[in-house]
């Protein structure tokens, strides 16, 4: 049994490509070429070089001494917050821009919620001198204005998504519609392990550098490649997919996925897809998603814009359904407290998405000898206003 995608992009019963025929040529071109291109020595060389010199990889695996003391276990932080642009998102956009170039594409589109993926996409487009259009919900544009400004400085055009609920899911719809309208010259850089095959697998492979590095770094520090647990927050699931990737088929490594409970699972304002979702189709993928009994996709809620997605990548749906992953959901309040605690104990202000992963330490007890790696997916700069408002700083 493997937890990787099969040839048709299925993780167990989840995944596949439920797309309108208009998208078939686009995704088919990608499907037929992505593994071949990723394995080309020239591609690998350029990808690795950019991750090193431009993104700043390898990111440190840092032993969090005071946090470990407080929770009486051995906690390591994988410092994706130190990546250029402030989060893991750029690992994927570097990979996909190189992929787009190999495929001869001259125009890039992307969706963004909080703006992190939009910024990471605009960044690599600037780097490569390629035209970039980012779709962003009208409501998100209003509440994430610094990232809108960043994208503009980087030369991207930010187009408001005016349909539906005017947030991330609608921005994704608009990006997909743009791709339908521009099937030949455009590549769609999707921002997480979501969407139709081959996206979930391709994005997971680009993010897998996270767990590849953890293995080597843990070997140096602990004399073994495998931790007892890997913990990551899950929005669409890309930082988690990268942190789990090389451990998926090693049952001795516990996988912990942390979702956003928002104001509480039963509050009606939540984004805890594994707890609240049912099997269905969203953005071309069969997976768990939050929806009405009638099959209309509903709007999630979390204080953290990056976790505010009504679905979850098919890999994670499978990890949940099969029991391979342990799923925990964390409320806004607990996440905010965990963010404050990490700042005070370790001098690191985390993105609120990442704070969710740290909040489990209050609930999930580990043994003193356990080695627990927490993926610190991003830094808190972008969230400063939310922290200020919440704590009256």
């Amino acid at each position, binding site marked *: 049994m493997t937890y990787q995608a099969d040839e048709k992009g299925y993780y167990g019963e989840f995944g*596949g*490509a*439920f*797309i*309108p*025929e*208009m998208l*078939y*040529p686009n995704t088919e071109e990608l499907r037929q070429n992505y593994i071949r291109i990723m394995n080309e020595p020239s591609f690998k060389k350029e990808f690795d070089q950019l991750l090193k010199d431009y993104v700043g990889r390898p990111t440190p695996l840092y032993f969090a001494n005071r946090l470990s003391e407080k929770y009486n276990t051995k906690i390591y932080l994988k410092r994706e917050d130190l990546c250029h642009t402030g989060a893991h998102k750029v690992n994927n956009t570097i990979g996909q821009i190189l992929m787009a170039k190999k495929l001869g594409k001259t125009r890039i589109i992307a969706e963004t919620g909080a703006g992190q993926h939009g910024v990471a996409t605009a960044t690599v487009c600037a780097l490569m001198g390629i035209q970039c259009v980012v779709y962003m919900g009208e409501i998100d544009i209003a509440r994430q204005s610094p990232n809108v400004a960043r994208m503009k400085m980087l030369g991207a055009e930010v187009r408001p998504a005016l*349909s*539906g609920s005017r947030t991330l*899911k*609608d921005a994704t*719809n608009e990006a*997909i*519609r743009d791709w*339908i*309208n*521009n*099937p*030949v010259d455009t590549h769609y850089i999707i921002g997480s392990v979501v969407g139709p095959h081959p996206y979930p697998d391709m994005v997971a492979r680009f993010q897998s550098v996270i767990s590849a590095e953890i293995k080597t770094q843990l070997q140096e520090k602990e004399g073994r490649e495998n931790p007892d647990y890997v913990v990551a927050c899950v929005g669409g699931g890309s930082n988690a997919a990268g942190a789990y990737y090389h451990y998926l088929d090693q049952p001795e490594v516990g996988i912990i996925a942390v979702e956003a409970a928002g104001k509480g699972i039963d509050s009606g304002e939540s984004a805890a897809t594994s707890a609240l979702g*049912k*099997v*269905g*189709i*969203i*953005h*071309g993928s069969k997976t768990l998603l939050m*929806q009405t*009994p*009638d*099959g*209309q*996709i*509903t709007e999630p809620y979390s204080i953290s814009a990056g976790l505010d997605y009504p679905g979850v990548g098919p890999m994670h749906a499978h990890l949940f359904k099969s029991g391979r992953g342990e799923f925990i959901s964390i409320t806004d309040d607990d996440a905010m407290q965990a963010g404050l605690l990490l700042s005070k104990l370790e001098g690191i202000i985390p993105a609120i998405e990442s704070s969710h992963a740290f909040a489990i330490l209050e609930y999930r007890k580990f043994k003193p000898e356990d080695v627990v790696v927490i993926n610190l997916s991003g830094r808190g700069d972008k969230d400063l206003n939310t922290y200020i408002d919440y704590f009256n700083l």
Partner: protein
Amino acid sequence: MNRINQKIQEDKKILSIYFTAGYPALNDTAKIIQDLEKNGVDLIEIGLPFSDPLADGPTIQRSSTEALKNGMTTEILFDQLKDIRQSVSIPLIIMGYFNPMLQYGVETFCKKCKEIGIDGLIIPDLPVDVYHEEYQAIFEKYGLINVFLITPQTSEERIRFIDSVSKGFIYMVSSASVTGAKSGFGQEQQDYFERIASLSLANQQIVGFGISNSETFQAATKSAKGAIIGSAFIKHLTEHGVDSIANFIKKIR
């Protein structure tokens, strides 16, 4: 014989109209269908609204959002249609996205369609491959014809596969785009329509996307069997209301 197959055999160009069920008002469904038939429309696509219609442009998106706000659900649509065959005899197709059908249960959905007298389905995000492997047997058990789309980018090999799975007609998308009225067809579209006509497929083609008036209807049906109007009809309903359906259809042919 399925009403779609009968209609296709008639010696005339087919005018098909799409509308979103539940729009402009929740209970307009039956009246719209009846008026369309009265005015000589050959085939009707009843849109089951969805929150996230990926293949649709702004007009159909907006009508879907409104319809859902008006309270439309799968169950209500079936209820509105339960007596439709007492007054309407042209072929009726339900067009909708796959998720609401999955939640209803694909087999239950098909069974209900048969009871009502629905003749076929168009499900843009159910790819032909998945249909063929997982759902074809169910659809056929209930006598439903599933209609597939092709686009200018679809390879000949794939068109032939789609033709082999199709049992009614092929929905020929006029250009690489989402739904919505365009300014007309150029040489590129004409070449594409003729290229498809020259393939001598088992299924005839009906053109959709970008048909909005008599001129585009004529252009599209020069080599194809018929054409489908969606967004332009919805715009007409928005601007002139459900009592002016005759005015719209009269201008098409």
